[in-house]
């Protein structure tokens, strides 16, 4: 009988660079910056690391393929290094690899590091579109961008739950405005100013019905974690953070090609969340999960994720958004660090950046953004498109 990962792995150190349009830093600089912080935080030296997992997505725009960029940049001494890529879940995938290796007993101490240098493409938004799905998709798929693919979920959500475009956009504006409030308090965030609902509603449309502030930033950044066996964790620090659940779910093709998906939820998140709660023995996520960093690549993504994660009933997230449930001072704060909205989304780094915030919150080191007595924190990545994607989800706690 599979035992799952609960309480087998602890995070004993984390590092995260400032995110932003870092014209003066390359991917290698960012990797070194994140690495310096993570080993200092863990109180270890490079020689203590036994294996490493490296996450980066658009390698053609920055470091190139394979695991060598991490090893040669950090001068890792002929260690087993694995490069992983799994769309926007890439950073979480690096951490997942490190966690399972430690849980399996193969290593005592492992490094996970993710990086992405997006601002060397020469244009806004993510590269790719349909081309990231391979050569045949390039011949038939629509001329699609990330905002457009998620905008279609907003169109669908509004239609399914009878929201007028004004009502729907107003709901989404509150999602973004809340995150901007949190990001303004975070020195590591890329976008650090408050944005009002009115400003959000008046912003130019990127992909109808999503406007500029419904979209997360595009940034450079890196983040890293050191994990160890749970039974060794207290040797390194008094407040290690334990992995309570770790799930990923990948689309089967059903959402895109079969006629049953309603287009206004994410099936993979729904499934991964149910499994994660079971693994962590969480019965009532709405009450028991203290806080979460979810994949708010777009405001609509965060909104439906609240339902997919059982924080809000289906079709009724608007009530919780209107009530301020997910605000920093609400009952279940979401995106306490500002989220992708304010950090931007350097793909390989994002999952680890989210974990950085949950880790600091659980240790009581989140400063002005500190959530009161958090018990469980959740991170969630959605890679790909609402109709065809990879979901990763971590639950962590003390």
């Amino acid at each position, binding site marked *: 009988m599979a035992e799952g990962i609960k309480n087998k792995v602890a995070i004993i150190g984390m590092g995260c660079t400032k995110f932003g349009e870092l014209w003066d830093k390359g991917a290698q600089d960012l990797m070194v910056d994140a690495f310096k912080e993570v080993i200092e935080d863990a109180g270890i030296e490079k020689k203590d690391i036994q294996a490493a997992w490296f996450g980066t997505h658009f390698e053609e725009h920055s470091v190139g393929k394979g695991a060598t960029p991490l090893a040669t940049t950090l001068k890792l001494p002929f260690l087993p290094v694995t490069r992983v890529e799994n769309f926007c879940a890439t950073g979480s995938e690096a951490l997942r690899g490190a966690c399972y290796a430690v849980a399996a007993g193969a290593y005592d101490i492992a490094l996970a590091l993710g990086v992405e240098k997006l601002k060397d*493409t*020469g*244009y*806004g*938004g993510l*590269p790719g*579109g349909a*081309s990231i799905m391979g*050569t*045949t998709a*390039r*011949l*038939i*798929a*629509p*001329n*699609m*961008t990330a*905002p*457009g*693919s998620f*905008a*279609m*979920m907003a*169109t*669908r959500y509004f*239609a399914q739950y009878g929201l007028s475009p004004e009502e729907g956009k107003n709901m989404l504006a509150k999602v973004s405005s809340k995150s901007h409030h949190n990001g303004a308090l975070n020195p590591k965030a890329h976008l650090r100013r408050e944005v009002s609902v009115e400003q959000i509603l008046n912003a*130019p*449309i*990127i*992909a*109808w*019905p*999503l406007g500029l502030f419904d979209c997360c930033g595009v940034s450079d950044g890196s983040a890293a974690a050191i994990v160890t066996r749970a039974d060794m964790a207290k040797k390194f620090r008094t407040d290690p953070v334990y992995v309570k659940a770790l799930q990923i779910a990948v689309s*089967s*093709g*059903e959402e*895109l*090609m*079969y*006629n049953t998906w309603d*287009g206004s939820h994410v099936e993979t998140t729904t499934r991964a969340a149910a499994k994660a709660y079971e693994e962590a023995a969480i019965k009532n996520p709405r009450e028991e999960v203290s806080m979460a960093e979810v994949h708010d690549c777009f405001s609509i993504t965060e909104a439906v994720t609240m339902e997919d994660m059982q924080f809000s009933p289906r079709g009724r997230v608007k009530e919780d958004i209107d009530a301020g449930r997910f605000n920093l001072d609400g009952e279940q704060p979401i995106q306490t660090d500002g989220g992708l909205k304010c950090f931007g989304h350097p793909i390989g780094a994002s999952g680890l950046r989210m974990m950085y915030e949950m880790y600091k919150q659980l240790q009581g080191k989140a400063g002005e953004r500190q959530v009161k007595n958090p018990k469980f924190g959740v991170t969630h990545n959605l890679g790909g498109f609402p*109709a065809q994607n990879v979901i990763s989800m971590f639950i962590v706690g003390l």
Partner: protein
Amino acid sequence: MAGITSYGAYIPRYRIDHNTIFSAVGFLGTFPSPGEKAVANWDEDTLSVAVAAAIDCLNGMEREKVDGLYFGTTTQPYMLRQNSAIIAAALDLQSNVRTADFVGSAKSGTGALLAAFDAVKGGDASNVLVCTSDCRAGKPGGSQEHLYGDGAAALLLGNDGVIATLEGSYSVSYDFPDRWKSSGEKFEHAWEDRFIRDSGFSRIIPEAISGLLNKYNLTIQDFAKVAYPCLYPREHAGIAKRLGADPSQIQESMLATVGDTGSASPLMMLVAALEDAKPGDKILVASFGNGSDALFCQVTDGIAKVGHRHGIKNNLAYKKELTSYERYLAFRNLAPMEMGMRGEEGAATPMSTLFRERKMVLALCGSKCKRCGTPQYPPQRVCVNPDCGAIDEMEEYRFSDKKGTLFTYTGDNLAASIDPPAMYGFIDFEGGGRSWFDLTDCDLDSVKVGLPVEMSFRRRYVDEVRGVHGYSWKATPARP
């Protein structure tokens, strides 16, 4: 007896008023006659409009019985790579089909028709589809710019179910150098209009028609309709007079509604005539271009059995005015447009992939599970139905002729497009199957969830560096 068994036509949705062109570049040319012309959308070209006309023609017909496809044009996208073979692939015709391109003259359309007639009459072929189309661009400010319109016609020829018997033809050929274009040139050159009018239209068309009348011992009064092109409205009427025809016999040339569609023009007029024809009517058609082909047909009782066609009438009525001359220039790639660095990205077309996946890409074929009946696109080997999952129990399933509804959509301003916002969405097909497609011939304000849609073969991109014209299927609002 051999003849026409079905017809179809296509006129692009956009029309631009001659005055819109004149107000932009009128300082360069003469004041145009009143009217408008049909403009292919930015994702349409000679092949895509030909496919649209062919689909109209094949509506309700057994396309698996088509054993020939002849294509007439002067603006074929490819000099090497048979254009008719691309059309046949888009139409999902059987592979044992004879395809041929007829190019180089505005009489290419009638040339294709006569060759098809010979093949069917001689028994070499049973059902030959004739497609003809042109999308000719005139230089900004020149008279060709407002005279030339975009359009297509298609006729199916066979021996069974004939709606108009093809009775005979008479052709003349002259190296008449009214207009010419060398390989690789974007625009035509033309000699003086008065020469084209006096030595061309007014001599050559009457010569061909008179030759036809003499050959078959007929008079002009024997015809319900006489159709021929002419760039000059006054001369168009003058030719009728010289032939001794009553103005009511003359088929309207569409010069002021569609524009001169080159090789497609005579057959588009024939389709228009067939739409109004009664059994027993004789229709005479003549083309013009380095001579003329004149031919005639006689309508049978079968004409009443033709199913719904967009034809000329419905296509003429389905339109949207293109009010901006600048957008017209952008659509026709006549002005270099800033597409951003995102628009400059683009990998080579993988030709071996394209050939291997030709049914999926060009014919919009997916698969249908023989066990559970679920249609799916793109084609799958493992059934997508989670309660089925059968492996390798698929049969081919064509989506191009299936209607659908819009499940969701967006208008994307970030995607590189010559006509932003880029529209795309999910289509749920009648009978099952779902996928995402670009949307075209629509505007963000005019679409909504649940909109009825149909599929349209479109030019996806032109890779000028590598000389590739790429095609795929998009969804459009269902035409009435």
